[in-house]
C-alpha cells in the first residue's frame, strides 16, 4: 500500500513537471524570423508584420532591431559591428498584427537587421520594402523561418 502511494506521488510529480515545462516553453519568446543584414535604400522603409495563424490565438511579438556600422572594407567585402540593439516591449496580438517599421537612410547606421520573436513557433511573418514616395510595396522579402 505504502509502495503504491509513493509510486502515485512520484507519477503526479512527473506529470506536474511536464505541465510546468510546457507552460514555460509557451511563454518563452524565441526568434521566429530574421531578415539578415540588409542596407535599406534612402527612399525605402522596411515593414515587418506578424500575426497568429489562428486569429483568436493570443500571440506575443517582440521585434529586435540591430543596427550595424561598417568597420573595415576589402575589395567587395565589408565587415560590420553592432552599433545599436533595441527590442520592443511585448506586443500582444489577438486578431491583430504586430508591426515594426524601420526607416532607410538612418544616420550612423550602415545596415540593419530585424529579428522577430514570438511565444508561438507557428506565426505568420511578412517583410516588405516600401517606397516612401509612392507608398507602393516594392519588394516582399522571403524570410527565414525555423
Amino acid at each position, binding site marked *: 500500500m505504502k509502495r503504491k502511494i509513493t509510486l502515485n506521488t512520484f507519477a503526479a510529480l512527473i506529470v506536474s513537471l511536464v505541465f510546468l515545462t510546457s507552460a514555460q516553453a509557451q511563454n518563452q519568446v524565441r*526568434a521566429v524570423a530574421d531578415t539578415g*543584414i540588409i542596407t535599406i*535604400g*534612402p*527612399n525605402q522603409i522596411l515593414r515587418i508584420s506578424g500575426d497568429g495563424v489562428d486569429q483568436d490565438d493570443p500571440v506575443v511579438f517582440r521585434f*529586435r532591431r540591430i543596427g550595424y556600422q561598417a568597420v573595415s572594407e576589402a575589395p*567587395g567585402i565589408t565587415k560590420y559591428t553592432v552599433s545599436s540593439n533595441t527590442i520592443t516591449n511585448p506586443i500582444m496580438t489577438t486578431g491583430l498584427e504586430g508591426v515594426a517599421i524601420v526607416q532607410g537612410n538612418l544616420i550612423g547606421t550602415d545596415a540593419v*537587421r530585424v529579428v522577430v520573436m514570438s511565444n508561438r513557433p507557428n506565426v505568420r511573418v511578412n517583410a516588405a520594402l516600401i517606397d516612401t514616395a509612392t507608398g507602393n510595396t516594392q519588394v516582399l522579402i522571403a524570410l*527565414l523561418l*525555423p
Partner: protein
Amino acid sequence: MKRRITLSIAITLSIVAISLTSSDTAVSAQNQIRVVGDTGVMKLGPNQVLRVGAVDGDTDGSDFVLFRRVGYTHDACNGGVCKLVASSQTTSSPISLMTGEAVTFQVGPDVQGNGVRVVVLSNDRSMHGNASIVDQVTGAIVTSWSWGVANSGSSD
C-alpha cells in the same frame, strides 16, 4: 565485491571513452567547412549589385565565413534553354566573425559574363543571412531573400 569493482571500472572507462569521442567529434565538426548559403546563378543588370550578408547564429566568437564567387558564360542554347558553364571561380580568405559582427560580400556592378553565383561557406551551421540585388543608382533594394537556418539562440 571484486566483480562489483570491475564493473564500476568498466562503466567509468566507457563513460570517459564516450565523452572523449563525442568531444572530438564536436571539435572536428566545428572545423569542417561546409556550404551554408547559395544564391544560385543569376544575371545582374548593368546598374545592379548582388550583396550577400552573413551573421553568426551563436556567440562563441570562433566562427568564420568564406564567399565563393562563380562566374558563368553561355555554352549552347536550344529552344529557350541555355546551358551555362563555369568560367571563373574565386574564394575569399576566411573572415572571422566575433560576437556582434556581420559581413557583406558584394558582386558588381558591371559583371562580365552571363551569370554569377555566390556560395557562402562556413564552419558554423548556424551562420545565416540574406542576399539582395540593389540598384546602384538609387540605392534601393530590388529583391531580397534569406538563406541559412534562422537563429534560434536569441531568446529573451
